[in-house]
């Protein structure tokens, strides 16, 4: 854990250390680093600029709130000290660090603020959607935000932010004011990942698109996947897209997945969409239809019938062809 003592001139420390530093703690307390001063590097300095100002994101005072304790920071190696076993999921989503602080207001309410810096905006989107509570109310903070009775979560740029108020206090408007200030301190929020456009909107369950960074469907080769839920007579079906760097990688991974499911028997080849694939019925997911489309794999799980599954996959394949976020096409057209 790293402690930022209120009043410590963190930028000065980093400047003395030869580190390019954009972090300041407590904007009111921190000594500014002269803009014209060139960074001094030595062999010990790995001098990558800290990409945001901790002080701006977690200011001393915001509306009715005053920061009541030092900002604490944790990195990937000791995140478990802060959130114990939950760290595993954050590591999967490429957490870089978390800055956390407590605020109090005049009515005695306490709010904790955690600012998780993820690997990029896709991972921030991913962890936000992973922890999304469907019952929470949408709020216009960051790219997407939701507020529960005593909590508020949003993502903005490559940051995922969680605010939690003590049960005794923290009226929603006050919590939203604090969240808004944190969001402004993080800079421009950015936009939704372009990969969400891979999924057709007809029948799409709202807010159901997820980023699955690793082990999609339990397959170690399925990384950086996106999935979405579609309305279905009994329970929603799932559509999954796994992009690969090359068509050859997709071919190999697809063959391995097919082989994995084929051990249980009952496979049927399908000729389209894309490069075709297979269908089968799994004892857990129900109907599975999987196709390869160039350097991507698209899979439908649990659709009510093959026609429905194929229709969704055909639309996904079409969208992959035209999406700027589509997988690379090193080996020809999709």
């Amino acid at each position, binding site marked *: 854990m790293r402690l930022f003592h209120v009043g410590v001139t963190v930028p000065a420390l*980093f400047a003395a250390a030869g580190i390019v530093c954009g972090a300041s703690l407590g904007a009111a307390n921190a000594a500014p680093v002269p803009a014209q001063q060139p960074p001094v590097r030595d062999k*010990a300095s790995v001098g990558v600029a800290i990409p945001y100002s901790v002080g701006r994101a977690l200011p001393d005072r915001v509306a009715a709130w005053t920061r009541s304790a030092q900002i604490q920071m944790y990195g990937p190696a000791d995140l478990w000290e802060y959130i114990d*076993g939950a760290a595993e999921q954050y590591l999967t989503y490429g957490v870089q660090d978390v800055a956390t602080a407590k605020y109090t207001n005049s009515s005695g309410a306490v709010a904790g603020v955690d600012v998780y810096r993820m690997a990029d905006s896709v991972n921030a989107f991913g962890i936000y959607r992973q922890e999304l509570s469907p019952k929470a109310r949408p709020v216009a903070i960051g790219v997407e935000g939701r507020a529960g009775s005593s909590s508020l979560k949003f993502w903005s740029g490559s940051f995922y932010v969680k605010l939690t108020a003590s049960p005794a206090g923290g009226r929603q408007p006050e919590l939203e004011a604090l969240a808004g200030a944190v969001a402004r301190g993080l800079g421009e929020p950015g936009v939704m990942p372009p990969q969400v456009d891979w999924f057709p909107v007809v029948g799409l369950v709202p807010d159901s698109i997820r980023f699955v960074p690793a*082990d999609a469907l339990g397959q170690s080769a399925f990384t950086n996947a996106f999935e979405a839920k579609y309305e279905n007579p009994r329970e929603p079906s799932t559509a999954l897209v796994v992009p690969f760097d090359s068509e050859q990688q997709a071919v190999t991974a697809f063959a391995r997945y097919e082989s994995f499911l084929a051990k249980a028997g009952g496979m049927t080849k399908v000729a389209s969409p894309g490069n075709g694939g297979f269908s089968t019925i799994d004892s857990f997911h129900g109907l599975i239809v999987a196709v390869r489309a160039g350097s991507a794999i698209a899979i439908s799980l649990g659709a009510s019938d093959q026609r429905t599954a194929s229709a969704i996959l055909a639309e996904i394949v079409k969208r992959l062809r035209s999406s700027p976020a589509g997988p690379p096409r090193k080996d020809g057209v999709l």
Partner: protein
Amino acid sequence: MAGPGVAASVQEAQPNARVRRFKTLGKTGWKIGDISAGSGQRDPAVLNYIFETGINLIDTGAQYGGHEDLVGKVLPRWRDKVFVLDKWDPPLVTATVTKSALLEALDVSLQKLNTTYIDCMMIHSIGHPRYGGLERIQNPAIHEAWDEAKRLGKVRFTGASSHGVRMVEEIEWGLDNNRFDVILIGANFLTHGVEPLLKKARAKGVGTIAMKTMTMYKSDLNIRALQNEQTNARQACLKWVLASDLFDTLVVSMQNYDRVAEYLAVSGTTSLTARDERYLDTVAAAVGPRYCRPGCGSCHAACPHGVPVADILRYKMYFEDYGEEKFAMQRYGLVPTSTRPSRCEGCAAPCETACPYGLRVRERLSEADRQLRFA
């Protein structure tokens, strides 16, 4: 397009991936597979497959980002065959938490898990200074909530999990006061100070489960000397626990089918081979000299000059092992000059005497000072 055929389960097609040994989980009387599942799954079908292999204990918790919900999708198929180990969210369980708050949280967990009862409800992360000390687990509300939940049939057994610095002290309190039926502790081939605790637990009929079995930080054992032999090294780490008679089972994160097969390949192990020992030696050589063991913290109060020994050694580890040089230096920059290791030269080094693992603490502190202050 032809309709698909009906497939059997994946497990029926891969019968070799199976639990091969079962032990009794202390006074619970449950026959538990020697390998149990941690909370790494993201797809319910993987968890279903895990249960098909004979693994019959799932370790979950309110804190594990939606894992209770995932278990709830699979559990109804397996409810009477699987032992569910659940935990309250650590920040909820304080020295002042009320019985009603705990019971309310329990009901939320039951709803997510899609069940009417939890086999073992644990206090999570005891012995961790962040969440409080003994006063936390001595809060009568916790014990009243447990008793009430048992009376209502919502909880069958109780226990605690820990890999914190005061793990031994706080687990021991629970054992002495007969509050725990099962304990889940950080333990692996590098931790050799917890045997008395485990023996005490077993003498009292308390079930014992190991976690963090591949050492705390390097779960992938990405050690240069192992090159492409990480699988063998991971298996050797598990085999060490399996060969010990101090644990009823171990929990390990199983995020994909490959890992399930890899881990189940060593189920039934009762002894280590010379080859396993060599892998463990390799891991120990790479990790051991730097690895502060779960539940230790012996050096915490040892320094007469107030040097935060364990913290600085951890910063050094970030610098050396994780490529997080900047992060490590930033942290070290916030250690007050008066408590940096500048006085270590000429000190009698009570920190080294205090370290039960023989870490050359003074030398490493001096190295850390040179590395981290850019000299």
